[in-house]
C-alpha cells in the first residue's frame, strides 16, 4: 500500500455484511492508496484498476452529455458480488475513490449503500 495509514479510514467498511474488499484509489492514476480485505477478496490492484476505468468512462460520458451532473456512485451487480464505487468528497473532479466489494448473498444492498455514503461523508468531516 502506498498510504498504509489511510487504511484506518476503511475499517468501518469492514462492518458491512459480506464485506470482501475495501480500497481507496487515486482516480487520476488508478493507484491503490490503501486497502483492507478478507480472505476471499479479489486482487486489490485489479479491482481498483477496474473501478478507476469505470469512473473514467462515466466521467467521459458526463463530459459528452454536458448536463452539468456529478457522478455520485456506481453500483455493479455480479452473480456473486456487489462492486460499489463512490467518489470521496464533494469535488466535481474527484481525486479519490472508495471501492467496496461485498458478497452478494450476504449483503443488503440498500444498507451497504447507506454505509458507503455515511463513510464517505465521515472522510470529509
Amino acid at each position, binding site marked *: 500500500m502506498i498510504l498504509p495509514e489511510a487504511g484506518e479510514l476503511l475499517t468501518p467498511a469492514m462492518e458491512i455484511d459480506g464485506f470482501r474488499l475495501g480500497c481507496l484509489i487515486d482516480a487520476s492514476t488508478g493507484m491503490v492508496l490503501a486497502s483492507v480485505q478478507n480472505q476471499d477478496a479479489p486482487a486489490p490492484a485489479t479491482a481498483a484498476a477496474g473501478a478507476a476505468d469505470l469512473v473514467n468512462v462515466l466521467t467521459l460520458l458526463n463530459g459528452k452529455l454536458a448536463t452539468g451532473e456529478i457522478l455520485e456512485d456506481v453500483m455493479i451487480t455480479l452473480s456473486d458480488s456487489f462492486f460499489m464505487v463512490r467518489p*470521496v468528497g464533494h469535488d466535481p473532479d474527484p481525486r479519490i475513490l472508495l471501492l467496496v466489494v461485498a458478497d452478494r448473498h450476504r449483503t443488503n444492498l440498500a444498507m451497504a449503500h447507506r454505509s458507503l455514503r455515511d463513510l464517505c461523508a465521515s472522510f470529509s468531516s
Partner: protein
Amino acid sequence: MSQAPRRTRVRQLADSVWPGRTVNGYANLIAARLRKLADEKSTGVLPVSGPGDGAIFFRGGQVIYAESSRTPLPAPRAVGLAALGLVPSEDPQSLGQEYTGGAELVPARSVGRITGALVLTESVIDALTELLSSDSRYAKFRHADDPPAGQVRPMPVDVLLTEVQRRHAVLRQLAAVVTPDTAVAREPSLDGPAAQVSPAQWALLARTGDSTTPRGLALQLGRSVFGTTIEVCRLVELGLLAVPGRLAGPERPAEPGDGSAVPRPPAAVSFIRAVAGERGSDG
C-alpha cells in the same frame, strides 16, 4: 531551500554516474539495485542519470524521497483558484521549507489529509517513473546523504517498483495517442457539440498553446507528469485537444466501405489492461 540549488545538487550527484553502464533494459538493473539497497537496509542517496538527472533517497532500506529534473517537485495541495491553475503557484523556496504534510505517519482522518499525503507520494512516484526508464543509469550509492529537509515519506521498494511497472504499462498504451513529450494543441474547431470538462481539465486547456507537451503542462502546473499525460489523452478523446500532424483522435470513425481507412488506435486509457495484460521490463 530553493528549487534551483536542489536541482543543481541533483545534477552534481548525477555527474558522477559511472560511464559505460548503459545497456538495453537498464531499468532492470536499477530495479535490482534498489532491491539490494532495500535488503541491506541502506541509508543514503542513489544518483541516477539519463534523459533527466535525479536521485533516490533511502533511509533504513525504504525510499523516502526521489527527484527528477523532468518531473515537478512536490508542492502543497492547491486550493481555490490555485487548484484550477488560475493563479501562480507559491514560491518553490517556501514550499521546501514549509511542507511537512507527508513527513509524519499518523492516521489520516480526512480526505484532506489523504490528499495532502498524496501530493508528496505522487511526486516521488512520478520521479521514479521517469528515473526508471530504460535509458537511465545509476551511480555509486552515497551512504548517509540527507534528503531535502521536511519532505520525506518512507515507502517500501517493492511497492514502488510494482507501481512504476504499472505506470510504464499505462504509458506504453498511451503512446499510440500521446506521450509525455508529444506536442498537443487545442482543437481549433471548438464549435462542435458542448462538452463538460473538469476544473483540472480546464486548467490544461487554458494553458495549451500551439505546441505544448503534457510534461510542459505538468511542470507549469506542478502536477504529476503521469497524471497530466493521462488527462491530456482524455482531452484528445473528447476532441478538445489534437496532436498536430496526426489524423483526428481515436474517435474518428472510418468511412463505410473505405478499404483504405486508417485503423483506429486502441482505446487509449485502460488501467485494467496495465494490471492484467502487459508485463513491464522493470524487473
